[in-house]
């Protein structure tokens, strides 16, 4: 079981947990926006895409500052 767990972590998280965390945080925020926005709102997809990009930049900035 432990080996399976390690494999899943290797597979899903990779060697930098901040990338996976930033993706989950961005999509979590996107989910909240989707839940509160009117159905068919045209701005929603581009804004959610920008949130993903912003989360990636934030994760990378944390990474660089720690080096």
């Amino acid at each position, binding site marked *: 079981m432990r080996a399976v767990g390690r*494999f899943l972590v*290797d*597979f*899903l*998280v*990779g*060697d*930098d947990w901040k*990338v*996976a965390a*930033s*993706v*989950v945080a961005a*999509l979590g925020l*996107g*989910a909240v*926006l*989707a*839940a509160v*926005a009117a*159905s*068919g709102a*045209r701005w*929603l*997809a*581009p804004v*959610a*895409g920008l949130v*993903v*990009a912003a989360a*990636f*930049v934030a*994760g*990378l*900035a944390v*990474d*660089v*500052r720690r*080096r």
Partner: protein
Amino acid sequence: MSATWGLLAGTFTASFVEFVEALTIVLAMGVTRGWRSALAGTGAAAVALAAFTAVAGYALVTWLPRTALQLGIGTLLLVFGLQWLRKAVLRAAGLKALNDEEAAYAEQVAEARAAGTDERFGLDWFGFVVSFKGVFLEGTEVVFIVITFGLNAHDVPAASGAAVAAAAVVAAAGLVAHRPLARVPENTLKWAVGIVLATYGTFWAVEGLGVFQPGGGSLDWPGGDWAILAVLAGWLALSRLLVLLVPILARRTAEPAT
């Protein structure tokens, strides 16, 4: 037609890079722990991958609503793609060593030589397990790439064919060279594949966010599938900008506060 060529090229390149990494591991195990165990591990991983693809593919397509499928697969692709893009940006900015299959090979060989002997079912267990894990881990990423690109272009067989062709080319090259494929421009390929995976991951995961809306249908991108090009251009521009900005941030962080 051009979409099919794009699908073939994207899947082939992404799969090629994954298989080059798997080859390095299998070669290291074959040379140090014996070819029987390394090839048995590779074969077992191929069988496990086929079973995983059949079960996961059937389960995903049959039981998951389309939007949930887009969100799940898109999220995985985003994580894979952004991991690659992060490394590519750090490498291009000079903050991370370039990926070197010769060095990775030397590291694997040293670990394999240091490991103790444990024989099970007539196989060297270390060589078998490391080969199995390496091929299965890299192969699972290929499976997700094939499923995503294939479903998106409505041509899973073409995507599967491209991945199989990549595996055949890497295996043949490994057989001929009998050493890691160090001359492959892996860093450039990884950057390109990272952009493509991040693009499809963003497009699909965001569409899949529609599962949280009343009705649960996919979110619409302005311009439909053409938005993929805009997302691709966005990741391309952002990654180039980060290559310029990251060293500046690193220098400022390194400077002592006055």
